[in-house]
């Protein structure tokens, strides 16, 4: 899949940008705050209907402007498609594919897959289990629609069930027959999710392990596993929820279910979160993202776009160079890279013969630079 053209109006610090993109490597170079990352974020918008950084649409509009527009011309499975996202202050965002607005944004997710590697990725290891569930949900949703539907349904049901538990606690009352309808609704959908998550981790692991070995040079052994207290049997889930009723009442929330799943990352036999070095954690996340890219391609038949934001923050020059070499042998499709250093990335590609387009970003303006000949 390729993004051929990107058009931005009042998106963050870009008042207006028209960028024609190359099929392989697109570098956005410039100083801090020039708007390099915003170009990547615009691509993220088109693929995921939202910003990678700021979930509030209105805050992605340039200061003092009434609206913003992000529009991209894609080529997907040899068909040209136009995706656009318009946000007006105080109005709902308009997300369109080929000029037809979506009624459900969930219908768009996964159609134009992308993988982002950003400096704040280490949060995936450091933060709570919610981050890792979100990561897993985002990957699976890109190829499994039924999963996304089940997930949305379970989440809504859980909000209702928890509201009910709070009501019981606040009014010092309890009625199991009121909980039962929610359990009955949640259990079968939770089973769908549990099954998909288990299958995902099983399928994902081999690719991830080999990617990590390549990046680290086989220096250490890592692992990744799913911890959950439910299986894919709806009746067993319903029974467990029933058993946990007293605990639920005490804590005023649902204590058993797929919303308690976690993905555990290990280094040797230890938890990566506690015992991994910064460099090991960074390498782990990069390997995770790259394996994710290969996995999505395998599952959907569409090569995702790779967005590398400030990649030097994560890994040393040698490893970036090894990574960039893989770009040219067709492991990745289209790649977007940002860097503050003007010559560094173009120089790396000099010997590979890859199609490299270099853009200079300065105060929200994107200018094409002639390809450097080194």
């Amino acid at each position, binding site marked *: 899949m390729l993004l051929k053209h990107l058009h931005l109006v009042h998106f963050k610090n870009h008042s207006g940008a028209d960028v024609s993109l190359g099929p392989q490597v697109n570098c956005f170079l410039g100083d801090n705050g020039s708007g390099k990352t915003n170009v990547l974020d615009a691509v993220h918008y088109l693929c995921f209907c939202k910003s990678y950084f700021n979930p509030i649409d209105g805050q992605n509009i340039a200061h*003092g*402007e*009434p609206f913003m527009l992000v529009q991209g011309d894609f080529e997907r499975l040899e068909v040209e498609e136009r995706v656009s996202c318009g946000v007006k*202050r*105080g109005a709902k965002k308009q997300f369109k594919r080929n000029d037809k607005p979506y009624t459900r944004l969930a219908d768009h997710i996964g159609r134009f897959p992308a993988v982002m590697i950003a400096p704040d990725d280490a949060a995936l290891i450091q933060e709570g289990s919610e981050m890792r569930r979100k990561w897993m949900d985002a990957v699976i949703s890109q190829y499994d*629609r039924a999963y996304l*539907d089940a997930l949305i*349904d379970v989440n*809504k*049901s859980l*909000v*209702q*069930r928890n*509201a*009910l538990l709070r*009501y019981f606690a606040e009014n010092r009352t309890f009625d199991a*027959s*009121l909980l*039962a*309808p*929610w359990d*009955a*609704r949640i259990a079968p959908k939770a089973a769908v999710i549990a099954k998909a998550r288990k299958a995902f981790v099983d399928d994902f692991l081999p690719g991830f392990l080999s990617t990590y070995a390549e990046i680290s040079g086989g220096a250490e052994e890592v692992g990744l596993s799913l911890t959950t207290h439910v299986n894919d049997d709806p009746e067993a889930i319903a029974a467990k929820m029933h058993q946990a009723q007293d605990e639920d009442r005490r804590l005023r929330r649902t204590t058993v279910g797929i919303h308690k799943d976690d993905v555990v990352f290990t280094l040797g036999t230890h938890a990566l979160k506690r015992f991994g070095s910064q460099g090991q954690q960074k390498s782990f996340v990069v390997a995770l993202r790259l394996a994710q890219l290969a996995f999505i391609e395998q599952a959907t038949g569409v090569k995702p776009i790779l967005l590398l934001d400030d990649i030097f923050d994560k890994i040393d020059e040698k490893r970036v160079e090894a990574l960039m070499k893989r770009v040219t042998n067709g492991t990745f499709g289209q790649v977007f890279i940002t860097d503050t250093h003007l010559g560094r990335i173009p120089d790396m590609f000099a010997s590979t013969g890859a199609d490299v387009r270099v853009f200079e970003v300065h105060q929200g303006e994107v200018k094409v630079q002639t390809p450097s000949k080194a």
Partner: protein
Amino acid sequence: MYVLPRWSHPAILYLRPVQLPSRLIEAAVDQMATLPGIGRRTALRLVLHMLARDEDRVRDFAEAMVAMRSGVKPCGTCHNPTEEETCNLCANPHRDDATVCVVEDVRDLLALESIGEYRGLYHVLGGVISPMDGVGPADLTVDALVSRAAEGGIKEIILALPASMEGDTTAFYLAKRLVESECMLTTLARGVSVGEALQYADEATLSSSLLNRLPYKG
């Protein structure tokens, strides 16, 4: 002088507390704006419209509202609004009192009545269960329905509730409560709507149609 920001829409002016020319107008606008779907802007438009009317017509309007509120109460049997003890649907001897259709509110009842094919009675629930909005079975006419079913004489109860998560949950809860009544419980068919092309039906609708397919009757 205060200059409006460029993104200011005229509507924004009404969101600010603008001094209205009279306290009575202010009070009327406040009342009007308590209605669902009516913001302050529309409320002001409606109030000014009332102001321009003959006083008698405005009195008729206000009296109609008050008379409606004090004269209408829920039917003792089905909770459909009525001026009598029993509504005209329940009192109609030609209707089939062995079938009861459970609906969320009066609007759903009217929609079902408008097709003119259903000859049974109704039960107006007054909402659906939604803990998030603080609505539980005690806020609905669930107990009345259960005792109505326990009295006997009802053969079938049709659950005609909205096809939403809350509607489904309410149906599940009612089904549990109605087990002992031994009435046959049915629910509205759910699937591709009449005149709809299959290719435009969403996946949930289509899969429900396939799952609940019917013997072909020609």
